[in-house]
């Protein structure tokens, strides 16, 4: 996680993590996972809706791809902490440039459907490399 974050900073970018959980839950999870990123809450999910993030039904949540993904994570030591939140809400990943144009968008189709960190980094670097030289 730290290596990826350093690479993002080196590419001139930053990361903002958005959750719909209540803000008072943020510190616990940041500490538990060792996230080096800024984390904010969108409890009304206004941004989730605006960015077009959907909701997964039960069949999707327990589909083979998702089960395999979670089994793999648990084999690496991940232990779900439990949640009383909306488990149906899906996430997504976006890269926006300095003019707030969305240059990369990935809206998850299921909980295991996330782009690799390297894919996000490539999108970020494509912005940096297309920037006009100054000076």
């Amino acid at each position, binding site marked *: 996680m730290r290596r990826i974050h350093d690479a993002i900073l080196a590419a001139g970018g930053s990361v903002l993590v958005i959750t719909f*959980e209540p803000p008072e839950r943020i510190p616990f999870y940041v500490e538990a996972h060792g996230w080096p990123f800024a*984390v*904010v809450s969108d409890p009304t999910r206004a941004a989730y809706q605006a*960015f077009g993030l959907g909701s997964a039904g039960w069949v999707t949540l327990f589909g083979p791809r998702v089960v395999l993904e979670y089994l793999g994570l648990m084999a690496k030591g991940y232990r779900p902490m*439990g949640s009383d939140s909306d488990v149906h809400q899906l996430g997504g*990943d976006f890269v926006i*440039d300095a003019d707030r144009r969305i240059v990369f968008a990935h809206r998850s189709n299921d*909980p295991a459907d996330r782009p690799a960190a390297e894919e996000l980094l490539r999108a*970020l670097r494509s912005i940096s490399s297309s920037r006009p030289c100054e000076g």
Partner: protein
Amino acid sequence: MLNTVNRTSDFAFIDASGATVRLFDMTKGPTILIFLRHLA
């Protein structure tokens, strides 16, 4: 669905201290936005 997060589509978030922060105040340059599922 958004193509550009322009001035009319700025968003207000709440940080861990309970303060309201705006997307534009937190994203000065190229930014990766990661929308999470529930925290678990």
